[in-house]
């Protein structure tokens, strides 16, 4: 009865330019290129390697923070602790600077560990004790902000020179070193996405019940998402410290809203199960580029927020309209 026909492997590699374009990452990429063209038009030096490096350096902390947030959002969660972890790791970097490349490695390890511990606490509260993610991570964020204030009660301190110089420099005079960290995050994501845990992230985000009936350990997936996200926030704090070269107990606060904005701009559904980390990184880069474009266009920085919000709404509206036009709807 089961007719054994030969399967057709060529179907597997269908060219999907439309699908790519309608995905969130595709749209935000197009948006980024357009904005960059405007930027280059307004300010011809935009195409120089030093301006680009500057832009990348500015974008990297938010891009990495948004990448971490994406892990949790994909599993249908929210993680507010991003602001707390960035503040905490930033003050640690500024108060306890470790000199030299080896010192940088120690600092990085500390940042990752701090983020991982906060993430594990979040994971314990949300995945195992089943607290609501917003409430639990709000609490850990406040605790981290408080800890940061205890360590450094006012802006100050000095980040190790090696970190603040080398990590904002260029490799071979062209490649922004900070961009390599983003690349490392992307590579790690591409590998992770192709593990059972990575697929589990999408499964749990779409339907927790169905995922568990499919044999996926929901607790494990949730926990891993929070720990991974926490470590990535730690990296974001590390990169932010390299940027600012100083400590500020409130340095993480602006990242809270912008990280979510970048995630949404990058096409990841805030209700989970859809999207990806690369889109969020592009989303973060777009938000930062927008600032530069507005600045070079002579628009007062007070207007930045308005533009960022409008672009966010337009990108989401455009994305869903485009998806509908190309018939990516589900069967009714």
């Amino acid at each position: 009865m089961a007719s054994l026909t030969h399967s057709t492997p060529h179907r597997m590699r269908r060219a999907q330019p439309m699908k790519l374009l309608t995905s969130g990452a595709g749209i935000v990429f197009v948006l980024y290129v357009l904005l960059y063209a405007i930027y280059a038009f307004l300010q011809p030096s935009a195409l120089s390697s030093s301006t680009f490096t500057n832009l990348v350096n500015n974008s990297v902390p938010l891009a990495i923070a948004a990448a971490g947030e994406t892990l949790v959002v994909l599993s249908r969660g929210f993680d507010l602790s991003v602001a707390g972890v960035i503040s905490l790791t930033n003050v640690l970097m500024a108060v306890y600077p470790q000199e030299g490349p080896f010192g940088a490695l120690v600092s990085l390890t500390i940042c990752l560990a701090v983020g991982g511990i906060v993430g594990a606490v979040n994971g314990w509260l949300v995945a195992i004790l089943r607290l609501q993610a917003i409430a639990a991570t709000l609490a850990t964020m406040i605790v981290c902000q408080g800890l940061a204030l205890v360590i450094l009660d006012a802006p100050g301190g000095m980040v190790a020179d090696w970190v603040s110089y080398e990590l904002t420099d260029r490799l071979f005079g062209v490649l922004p070193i900070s961009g390599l960290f983003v690349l490392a995050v992307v590579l790690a994501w591409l590998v992770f996405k192709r593990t059972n845990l990575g697929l589990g992230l999408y499964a749990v985000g779409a339907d927790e019940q169905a995922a568990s009936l499919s044999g996926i350990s929901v607790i494990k997936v949730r926990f891993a998402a929070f720990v991974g996200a926490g470590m990535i926030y730690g990296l974001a704090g590390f990169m932010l410290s390299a940027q600012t070269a100083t400590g500020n107990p409130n340095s993480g606060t602006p990242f809270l809203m912008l990280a979510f904005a970048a995630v949404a701009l990058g096409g990841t559904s805030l209700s989970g199960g859809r999207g990806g980390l690369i889109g969020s990184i592009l989303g973060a880069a777009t938000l930062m580029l927008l600032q530069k474009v507005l600045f070079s266009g002579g628009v007062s920085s007070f207007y930045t927020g308005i533009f960022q919000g409008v672009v966010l709404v337009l990108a989401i509206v455009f994305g869903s309209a485009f998806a509908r036009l190309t018939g990516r709807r589900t069967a009714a």
Partner: protein
Amino acid sequence: MQEPVSGPAVPIGAGEVALSIEAIRKAYGATVAVENAAMTLMAGEVHALLGENGAGKSTLVKILSGVVRPDAGGMVLKGRPYAPSSISAARAEGVATAFQELSLLPNLSVAENLLLPRLPKGVAGMTSAAGTWQAGADILARYGLDHIDPGAALESLPLADRQRIEIVRAFVNARHVLVLDEPTAALADTQWLFDHVRAATAKGMAVLYISHRLSEVRALCSRATVLRNGRSIATVELSAATDGDIFEMMVGRRGHAARRAAASTAATLNAPVVLAVSGMAGDTLKDVSFELRKGEILGIAALEGQGQRELFRTLAGLRQPASGTISVDGVAQALRGPSHALRVGGGIAYLPEERKTEGILSGLSAASNIVLPILPAVSKAGLVSGRNERAASEEHAQRVEMSQRYLSFPIGDLSGGNQQKALLARVMATGAQTLLLFDPTRGVDVGTKQSIYAAISNFAEQGGSVLFYSSELPEIVQLAHRCMVLYGGRIFSEFTGEDIDEQALVAALIGHGGAERRASAGVH
């Protein structure tokens, strides 16, 4: 190993015992879901599990599949104690389940869904996209589902194919025991399933088959265990038990499946037209015209995907027809949405197909779910009055014979049958004079079905009009004054009163009978 079964003596056939369960008990807080369940599954048999909704079938299925652990009692699988702590543990022991509420992930591909939670590995331990695709394609081919693209997102499949994927996944994971919980709820054509079940049992698999369709059970199963109020009442040889016997064991009272509608058919034929559809086309629909009269129950019979879904959603205002007109009480209307449909003429209310996603608001109480459309009427100064809500919901619950004690529970905690009753009460509470009911008894037990039939009949007797689609022909025969058969998006034929006959409907369902697809919907 075999414990004695109560009720009629059962000659146990040849073959060894695959799974026996004994004195299983499971309570959720104060609610005892399963009081004392026992049964024996033989290798190579298809064993039916029968019972009303709330009888404990779903809980028993969850216990067998490792989703919940029993409070007491034990199970023995192939001579060894069996106490799975998770779905994966149950699968590892060779027990797999196709769940009634499909356990598939809409955002993943067909192949990924089939292979979860572990996908084929390629380079460096990473999952291999090509390997996943190929493994998915192999499985689909093995089960004759070549028409499904293993790389397609699950959500792009029609409901019937999603159900097939759920079933196939259980087949793939089952070695000793396969549990099929309402596997045909969305399948119009059961032949495919039956063929594969028989192939599996021929190799010694034990299949526990749960269905509300007795005709299917008789076609496929040899023995049946009846559950009532969480207790296994009896295990019977199906060839030796009449429908009446089984029905009595399930509900403790005799059913009556005579045509209710017969008497009033003539009266409705000359009643005023409340809903007239003329030349409607769009998507799958082609030139659909019909009239629905006051007090009439008009049934729609169709195989899966013949345009019935589009028809109902169009009439509910959820989609716009490409052409054609809809007149309500003689006035042409462009329905802009469900709330607009409620307001035109006497009002049109729609009971959607997917209870879980389109119907219930699972966090709210059953009472709140019922009074949702009439909130202004139960409010005082804009605030919802608890007492009014309670009174109004009791009134409407009564129309569908829903027990009042369920009203205060979150609706998500109720059985499917009670959820469906509450939803029917909700559409009736709107006060609409025309009801669109899409498969109103999908996946509910016989007792609930009778209540729903009675509620629909009463509604029509009081002058309301009902257009309903059903995947079960006996239901249309029993309930409808008039019946239209949709085929390929057209109204293929129409039957009135006594002419509504299962045999005739079956012929019409498959067009001129030319196609090789065998109609099935409850008929064998």
